[in-house]
């Protein structure tokens, strides 16, 4: 059996499973469409949330980023898990008790204003759109690698599948497909890690392999991380365990990712599907446990992949280069330029050339693909796209073909599950928050569901377009901006809505506008306008969400203090959501 057949079995099999689940659980009413009738068990919701949460960026890019930047990548590890502590203690139990369909519903009701609702809709669409583009791109990359098709075709196939089960099945369809997708993902992520951990460290548990000894070859065992530090230093990189980001920047980015996590609408609404506040708490524990399995493995994969990459590529001649090197070269994700003309590949710190590789048209057999990029003047000769480290990992370690196929199925599951969750928020923010609550309140239930399906189709078309022509370079980088926006809009405003009775309509709206304005302005300025990277106080655009959040708090409190207090029924409502009993099932 060759690789293509294995790929076909794994991808085809998992797709058949998702579609079968979707047909079994097709949604007919708004309640099924928005919150899966509110009767999902905490355990199943935990798995679904974990799958929803772990995106293509987590699955494909994170280990690659860890491999490339060592300690610096801890900001993603801590940020994307630590946010669940905020989410669980500050947000979801209360919003579940509030008992409505969407996050924007809370903003609209708590701040008694359709303007607040509209600001919420805009923020939700903005966050989810930035995020979903990365997912579509991820699906495209995997398909192009798998079936040797163009990325655009892969994106369109992925989008069709997502529309089929998320657009039609709503939350009910999504929930159970996400449970299946989590299972695919967790095996796809951990099985190669187990094999590689055994190869490199002799430890069956990859999470422990990270802190274990490097035992491959004849040399005396040394701690894996010391070995990596030595390799890194020899090639001119910063020490693997030290990193090179400023402490302040690191702090702000991590904080922004944490608060952003706690404000992501597609994660919050997942907790609306369980039946009580008590079930929300249980479900949050399950969610973090399922996420932790993958997140504790990621730093191990990162360290293993880096060790493998350096030892397999550095100081080898092209003729001796492993097969995977040439495979990924064909896909345009690896390139080698022989700067010193010795026929041997040298890897060191710095970019080999400017930008992504642009190849010359001809491909000569048994010779590296020539690039036309302008070469940089450092000694590094190897370019690799960090996204390939997870996908190429099994090939690097010489694992059996079915493992490679499994990893591909996992990548697709990760992208599809997150895209489905995002699509649900996007479509409900149009059908429920905009149409039903603002434009035409007399809409019937069936029309609302139709409207949601129509909206999800439109959003998918837009997302697919941006997946094919991505506006930003890295999948993970685009996602990081979504977090900045969530951290400066939803998180602080929801938090104040629950924990303060004094924050009023004016404060909340101006707070959100100020927070998002600062964050968006800073990101746009440094990404598109400024040609330099002299950030204010060394805060990179990824970390600005933290300051956006502080500004939101400050403006909201200041404005609320000088404008009239919220009416009595709002104060009563806040009292009510603080009481966990009798959360009931979701209503309009």
């Amino acid at each position: 059996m060759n690789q293509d057949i294995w790929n076909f079995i794994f991808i085809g099999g998992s797709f058949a499973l998702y579609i079968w689940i979707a047909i079994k659980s097709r949604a007919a009413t708004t309640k099924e469409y928005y919150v899966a009738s509110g009767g999902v068990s905490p355990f199943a919701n935990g798995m679904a949330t974990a799958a929803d949460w772990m995106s293509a960026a987590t699955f494909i890019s994170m280990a690659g980023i860890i491999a490339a930047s060592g300690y610096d990548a801890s900001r993603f590890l801590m940020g994307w898990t630590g946010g669940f502590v905020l989410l669980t203690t500050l947000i979801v139990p209360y919003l579940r008790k509030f008992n409505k369909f969407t996050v924007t519903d809370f903003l609209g009701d708590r701040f008694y204003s359709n303007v607040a609702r509209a600001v919420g809709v805009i923020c939700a669409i903005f966050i989810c759109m930035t995020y979903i583009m990365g997912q579509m791109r991820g699906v495209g990359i995997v398909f192009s690698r798998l079936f040797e098709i163009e990325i655009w075709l892969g994106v369109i196939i992925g989008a069709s599948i997502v529309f089929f089960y998320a657009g039609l099945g709503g939350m009910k369809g999504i929930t159970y497909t996400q449970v299946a997708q989590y299972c695919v993902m967790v095996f796809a992520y951990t099985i190669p890690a187990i094999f590689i951990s055994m190869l490199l460290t002799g430890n069956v548990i990859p999470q422990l392999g990270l802190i274990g000894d490097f035992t491959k070859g004849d040399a005396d065992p040394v701690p894996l991380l010391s070995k990596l530090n030595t390799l890194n230093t020899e090639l001119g990189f910063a020490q693997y365990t030290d990193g090179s980001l400023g402490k302040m920047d690191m702090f702000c980015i991590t904080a922004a990712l944490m608060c952003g996590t706690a404000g992501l609408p597609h994660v919050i609404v997942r907790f609306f599907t369980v039946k009580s506040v008590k079930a929300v708490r249980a479900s949050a524990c399950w969610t973090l446990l399922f996420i932790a399995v993958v997140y504790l493995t990621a730093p191990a994969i990162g360290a293993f992949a880096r060790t493998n990459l350096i030892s397999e590529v550095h100081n080898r001649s092209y003729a001796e280069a492993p097969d995977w090197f040439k495979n990924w070269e064909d896909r345009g994700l690896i390139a080698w330029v022989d700067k010193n003309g010795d026929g041997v590949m040298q890897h060191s710190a710095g970019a080999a050339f400017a930008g992504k590789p642009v190849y010359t048209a001809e491909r000569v057999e048994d010779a590296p693909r020539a690039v036309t990029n302008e070469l940089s003047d450092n000694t590094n000769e190897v370019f690799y796209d960090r996204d390939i480290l997870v996908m190429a990992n099994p090939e690097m370690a010489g694992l059996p073909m079915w493992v490679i196929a499994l990893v591909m199925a996992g990548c697709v599951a990760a992208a599809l599950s997150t895209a489905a969750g995002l699509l649900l928020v996007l479509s409900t923010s149009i059908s429920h928050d905009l149409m039903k609550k603002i434009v035409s309140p007399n809409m019937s239930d069936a029309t609302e569901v139709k409207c949601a399906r129509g909206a999800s189709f439109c959003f998918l078309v837009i997302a697919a377009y941006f997946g094919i022509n991505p506006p930003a370079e890295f999948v993970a980088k685009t996602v990081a901006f979504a977090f900045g926006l969530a951290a400066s809009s939803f998180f602080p405003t929801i938090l104040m809505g629950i924990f303060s009775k004094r924050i009023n309509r004016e404060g909340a709206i101006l707070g959100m506008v100020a927070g998002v304005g600062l964050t968006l302005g800073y990101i746009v300025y440094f990404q598109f306008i400024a040609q330099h990277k002299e950030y204010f106080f060394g805060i990179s655009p990824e970390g600005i969400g933290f300051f956006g959040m502080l500004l939101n708090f400050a403006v909201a409190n200041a404005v609320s203090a000088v404008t009239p207090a919220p009416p009595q029924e709002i104060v009563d409502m806040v009292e009510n959501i603080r009481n966990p009993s009798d959360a009931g099932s979701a209503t309009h």
Partner: protein
Amino acid sequence: MSTSTEESTAKPVSRGGYWSQSLRVVYIVLAIWLFASLGCGILFRELLDSLLPSVGGAPFGFWMAQQGSIISFLALLLLYRFLMNRLDKQYGFDERDRS
């Protein structure tokens, strides 16, 4: 649930008491959260790397940033769940899961 409403009206001070008690739980959990993640993983990392013994082959601060913090988060959520459920029981807000 009608029983819980009756119980909470039976204790007139319980509402305010419940809220301040649950705020205390949140403060405790978040204080540890802040220390374990942003504290140990970022602010005091070098200090921990040099002062405390390594975890296996990993310097302590580095390990906290990559694995230790995640394990603490999980423990914190379990702690939060336990404390809040106990509090609910004390104030009669406890709900039996309906099937």
